[in-house]
């Protein structure tokens, strides 16, 4: 990856004409990835309302948000992690482990507060484990999280085997099945609050600038006084914590824990982040982009669901989306370069 960056930089500078002024801010905004994505989202919305008569219904639309809220919570933290040049493929397995831990606490007779605290704490511990291996031992995050992906879920399988935890207390259902008011679910509120927090952190704080700096040039960032290992550690902790939050919501919504819970979700989270315009090689991306991408994916899967498309066929679509979103701009640039 570093090869591609170092060899392509001078070429890119030489290829195009050097602009004598920056594009007007409104023009840049209009032509940005986020606006394109917004148009796509609106297009899918209109298409869906034509495709199915059941689509334009406040309660149905409210149900549709459950398709993306849990994934998007993780995607916010994952976006920061990917911008900083790392990745965490173990998020779905963290959900499995956190949910299993919550089940154990529930079986031991504790109430909702303890169950929720256990879920969040397990997420944090898993994140810390990934973070220590990556930042202290200097191991590549892809391999570490491939390892923990099977370790964390493996522990769930050891605890549960082919069994399941059921019988969560009724007030625990609040997080995944409750509504704040009318059709606005508790999950949607959590999603919105987290979106604002992550947006502010990434775009308005020193910490956010440090994340971009590390993603563009980690060594350079270190020499400008950014504590690179510490920032990365915090990002792994955040990703773990968000997986814990998602585990609370998902477990509460399903009302049960199986070791196969949320399997394959890491793919959807990464797809959401990449679709949101975050560069998979790090260095650029935005939270508004991820928010719109969440809506796009939620609308698409919900629309396909209304048309009775089975889940595994939808996963073909997600896979194509992931590759297509990265491939098409590169293909386009290649074709334009040749013409």
């Amino acid at each position, binding site marked *: *990856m570093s*090869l*591609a960056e170092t060899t392509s930089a001078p070429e890119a500078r030489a290829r195009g004409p050097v602009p004598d002024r920056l594009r007007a801010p409104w023009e840049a905004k209009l032509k940005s990835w986020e606006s394109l994505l917004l148009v796509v989202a609106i297009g899918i919305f209109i298409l869906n309302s034509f495709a199915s008569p059941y689509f334009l219904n406040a309660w149905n639309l409210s149900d549709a948000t459950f398709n993306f809220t849990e994934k998007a919570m993780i995607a916010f933290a994952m976006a920061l992690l990917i911008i900083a040049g790392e*990745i965490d493929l173990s998020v779905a397995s963290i959900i499995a482990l956190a949910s299993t831990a919550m089940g154990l606490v529930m079986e031991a007779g504790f109430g909702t507060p303890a169950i929720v605290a256990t879920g969040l704490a397990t997420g944090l511990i898993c994140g810390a484990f990934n973070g220590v*291996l990556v*930042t*202290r*031992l*200097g*191991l*590549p995050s*892809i*391999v*570490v999280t*491939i*390892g*923990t*992906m*099977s*370790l*964390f*879920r*493996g*522990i769930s*399988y*050891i605890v549960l*085997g*082919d069994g399941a935890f059921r019988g969560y207390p009724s007030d625990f259902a609040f997080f995944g099945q409750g509504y704040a008011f009318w059709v606005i679910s508790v999950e949607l509120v959590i999603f919105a609050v987290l979106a604002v927090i992550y947006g502010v952190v990434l775009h308005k704080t020193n910490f956010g600038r440090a994340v971009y700096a590390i993603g563009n040039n*980690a*060594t350079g*960032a*270190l*020499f400008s006084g950014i504590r*690179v*290992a510490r920032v990365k550690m915090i990002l792994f902790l955040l990703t773990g914590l968000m997986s814990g939050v998602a585990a609370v919501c998902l477990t509460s919504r399903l009302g049960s824990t199986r*070791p196969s819970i949320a399997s*394959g979700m890491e*793919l959807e989270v*990464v797809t959401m982040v*990449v679709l949101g315009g975050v560069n*998979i*090689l790090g260095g650029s991306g935005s939270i508004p982009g991820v928010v719109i991408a969440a809506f796009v994916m939620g609308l698409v899967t919900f629309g396909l669901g209304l048309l009775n498309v*089975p889940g*595994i*066929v939808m*996963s*073909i679509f*997600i*896979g*194509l989306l*992931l*590759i297509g979103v*990265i*491939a098409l701009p*590169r*293909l386009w640039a*290649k074709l334009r370069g040749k013409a």
Partner: protein
Amino acid sequence: MSFVKSREAILLAAIVLLLGLIATRFPAFITPHNLASVYSDTTPLMILALGQMVVILTRCIDLSVAANLALTGMVCAMINVAAPDLPVGLTILIALTMGAALGAINGLLVWKLAIPPIVVTLGTMTIFRGVIFLLSDGQWINAHEMSANFTGFPRQVILGVTVMGWIGLAVALLMALLMARTALGRSFFAVGGNPHAAVYTGLNVGRAQFLAFVISGALAGLAGYLWIARYAVAYVDIAGGFELEVVAACVIGGISIAGGVGSVLGTVLGAMFLGIVKNALPVVDISPFWQLAISGAAILIAVTFNARSGRSKGRVILKSAEHAQ
């Protein structure tokens, strides 16, 4: 002398120690007959790991191998249902070709569009699984629908070892020959060891990566036929999550995830290590549900070990800068 200190020797010693430990609780485990069956059982893992080795050597990773195996296996099974009298040789040829074609899709996306391999193969992994569902309509193909020579071939025993085991051995020898004795094999090491230097010596980095994916795909296809025929059943979720075990075998075998370092013998031993653990679990009364966690822990321990031993001996000028990269 250098072999004694090498990674392969340490791994071999660990395997012997492991077998010794198992034998203290269950002596029948180390009879030649049982060891031969453990070896045969591990053959698919070994074949896939050898393909994955080439990919990792070139600084890539292929997470789609298990899905490739399942898709190619399903297609082989469907062809067998449609044409039961097709010679097994032709089925194997179809499996190799189809697997290679699926691998080529990964390779082209990595080579021509420079998309990170992890993203490409995560995507194709789900796409391949989805395609199996579309092809099979979610139905299983069971033993009674397959012809006897289709399922029987890998299970025939020659000199105490199954044909599947002999095929695995042949693949390992061919790969050893390819890696050590051909320009292509050497180029995989060069490309992964130092891509900059490889470009200056006239090697096409992207092309080498493409060919690595094709090899990995072809071997996954071969393993697909063997798997379906051996277990005599084909369905969507076959070998689900197996890609993690394959990566684990490579990492345990001493393949550096940073590229350029690894050997065929190491990979074979890595696969054998996992295979022995897997087969020993039920024997020593540990639930098979431990398997996933054990592969995960093995990946982490091995990658930590690799990073320690592989660190360059040069003088470290700025200690904290090491972690930044």
